[in-house]
């Protein structure tokens, strides 16, 4: 029973930055408000810096999984991909959340970020939405997924696959469609 509470407390400390800072400022009080007093007594000597490093390790692993599922977006944003992810990952993934769901949620975060502060290059968001559409169609039993995107996704993807850095704004509407006639059918894709 004690291990279950300890694991819960460590999991919370590793994934919730705000909770972690509050806890290390006053472990007993914070643990009491969370009903984790027993666990906090045992874990009162947890090393704050070690916990920070552990949290960073978990975030790095999570980032690697998301990056694997959004290769074009990652290439387009470069270091800003990891920077944006750091802001997104202040909240832990939901229980049972798969990496593809995490990647889709990250793209939603990028959309919100772009609406608020813009995103450079602007076409990176079209690539992100394109890749999120593919993930939704591949992994989430959506038989029909349609995305209308304001940039030339096909041209951008070709250039990036060839290792070139796209210059310019690439404004031209793209229509991306994925469909699966039956649940067991292979996914079909069309990109204008």
């Amino acid at each position, binding site marked *: 029973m004690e291990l279950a509470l300890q694991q819960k407390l460590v999991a919370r400390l*590793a994934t919730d930055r705000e909770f972690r800072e509050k806890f290390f400022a006053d472990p007993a009080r914070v643990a009491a408000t969370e009903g984790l007093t027993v666990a906090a007594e045992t*874990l009162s000597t*947890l090393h704050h810096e070690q916990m920070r*490093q552990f949290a960073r390790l978990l975030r790095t692993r999570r980032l690697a999984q998301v990056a694997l599922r959004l290769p074009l977006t990652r290439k387009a944003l470069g270091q800003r991909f990891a920077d944006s992810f750091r802001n997104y990952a202040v909240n832990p*993934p939901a*229980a049972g959340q798969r990496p593809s769901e995490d990647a889709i949620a990250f793209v939603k975060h990028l959309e919100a970020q772009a609406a608020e502060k813009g995103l450079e290059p602007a076409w990176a968001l079209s690539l992100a939405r394109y890749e999120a559409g593919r993930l939704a169609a591949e*992994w989430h039993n959506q038989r029909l997924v349609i995305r209308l995107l304001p940039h030339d996704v096909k041209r951008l993807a070709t250039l990036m696959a060839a290792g070139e850095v796209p210059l310019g704004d690439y404004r031209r509407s793209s229509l991306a469609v994925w469909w699966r006639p039956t649940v067991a059918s292979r996914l079909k894709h069309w990109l204008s």
Partner: protein
Amino acid sequence: MGRKTEITNLLANLPRLGAGLSYRRPFRDELLQRQSEVDFIEIIGDFYLDAPPEKLDELALLMEHFTVIPHFTTLSLGSAEGLEERHLEKIYLLLKRIAAPWWSEHIGYTRAGGINLGHPSPLPFTKEAVETMARNIITARRAIATPLILENVCSPLIWPGAEMTEPAFIAQVLHHSGCGLLLDVTNIHANSTNHGASPAEFIEQLPLERVVQVHFSGAHESKGRLVDSRTQSVPESIWQLLDLAVSRAPVRCICLERDDNLPPLPEMLWEVERARALGRLYKRWN
């Protein structure tokens, strides 16, 4: 026959595979062209659970060309809450499809109190944690007959209140669960270096007769600490540790892990070949 001898015999009957690498989608086509240069591939089994038909096609293609060893990260064998039956059932179905000689998971937990840690995290080195692991493994082994081997994890975090050392903890878990060991030498190197211990002594304290598979990968230094990032080529310090492990343990296969910053495939295949030569040197395979 004693239980220990029985387990050792069971592990000794597992096939000798040689040297291989963790499969990553970006190098699939090139790997298929150079399939004679790897003796097996390891897949992340979790990626094929609830998978769409295309992913299962990929798995079928890999199985057609390679011996496939499934490695899992999300079963959470160390969870005090117990295992999720549905998850176990999915793993069972996947293993049935693959018909692998063994499968692997971690000595750690990924799930607690509704939180998904996303990556195997360490346990306290206590009797309660040993019992928890043993209890969950019994449940898993009742559902899945394929031999299970367990991997040591890497973590900057040390739980307070340890009742034993980490090697003793690993030994206890293996003893009570009857499992083989997936020895990750890079994890040992990172943990030992970061916590001021000797990685070679760590290895010497493990029940090496239980080692079935070895993982090795690159690591890099960040803010004065060694991080098992799997993003770099393998440094000499890890090769030395791998040499020690292969010289002392009856390993059936060695697997190179690389997650990110993937180099051209020939670079990784050169590391696989070097590991294969090490296995030959110590007569682990021909």
